[in-house]
């Protein structure tokens, strides 16, 4: 195995381990969040984002690493986001957690994975059509909120933290 592959494997093992310990990969946790009955996956995700963003911005400010925004292509993100949400609710897994769910013994995740492989193949076939239609409507490019508002990310990080902590208190108060 190459260095890249070993690094990916080790990172993935730790990631999968933590997701399993956090109990976020199960169908009932994913659907529980969509039914707004059990917000475990959002507690987990938003905690990861809060911590991760601080280190990621420090590293990029130091010039050690580079940021990599995904393009704000309106048609692609809006239609893609809606389609993903619909599929997610029926499948009960997302791409990363399907692999983890299989590791946890959830055999039905195999069919979610097979479906996603077929979906990827269909997307590859539709790509020429989509790139000249939906994906060609309007693209704001690879932008962050810091670019959109022309402020330092260090202005936005505390605002994000405050909003998320408020949300966490709400989750705990409502027993979600």
């Amino acid at each position, binding site marked *: 195995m190459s260095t*890249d*592959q070993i690094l*990916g*494997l080790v*990172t*993935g*093992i730790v*990631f*999968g*381990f933590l997701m399993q*310990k*956090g109990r976020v990969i199960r169908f009932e946790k994913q*659907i529980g969040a*969509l*039914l707004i009955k059990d917000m*475990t996956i959002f*507690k*987990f*995700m938003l*905690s*990861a*984002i809060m*911590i991760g*963003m601080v280190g990621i911005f420090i590293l990029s400010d130091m010039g050690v*690493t*580079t*940021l990599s*925004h*995904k393009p*704000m292509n309106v048609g*692609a*993100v809006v*239609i*893609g*986001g*809606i*389609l*993903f*949400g*619909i*599929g*997610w*609710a029926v499948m*009960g897994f997302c791409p*990363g*957690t399907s*692999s*983890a*769910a299989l590791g946890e013994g*959830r055999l*039905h995740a195999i069919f*979610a*994975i*097979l479906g*996603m*492989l*077929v*979906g*990827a193949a269909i997307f590859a076939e*539709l790509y020429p059509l989509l790139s000249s239609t939906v994906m060609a409507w309007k693209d704001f490019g690879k932008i962050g909120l810091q670019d959109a508002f022309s402020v330092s990310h260090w202005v936005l990080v505390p605002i994000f933290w405050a909003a998320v902590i408020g949300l966490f208190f709400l989750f705990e108060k409502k027993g979600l």
Partner: protein
Amino acid sequence: MKLKTKDGGWNPYFAGALVGILAILSVYATTALMGKTNYIGASTTFVRAVGFVEQVFASEHVAANAYFAATKIKVDWQFMLVIGIFLGALISSLTGKSFKLEKVPPIWQERFGSSVTKRVVGAFLGGIVAMIGARLADGCPSGHGLSGMMQLSVSSFVALVLFFAAGALTAAIVYKRRVS
């Protein structure tokens, strides 16, 4: 606040914070060892994996496809990451005694009964639609939800809000009626 949950898991805030640290270590390690900053994601791997399958019986078709060409079909860092996720969850569930072979999950069973076929069809069709969406939006809850949000990407905020809004609406419709 309790460090262990009722089902024997870890406090989700704590486990999530550790994933935040992992994400920081990962951007640093990929930059240092691979020469390019890589962010955690999962859905591109499904394109590469199906590309390998298609290559077996239609290699020319795959070579001619613009999306496969742009994605580059190879077992890369992210491909191994997705395999690692499987292994990490396997190790954690076996050592933590929470591994469970399951064919039909509880909430699904309450709504659609214990039919394995129904669940297989649901998982499969849901998977198709979700992956077309993830590739169109250029990310899933890992790439957009974690990595994109950590950088305050505009596209990731929009994507995550829509993932949740469309998902919540669909779930409300799909799981509302219960079988008695």
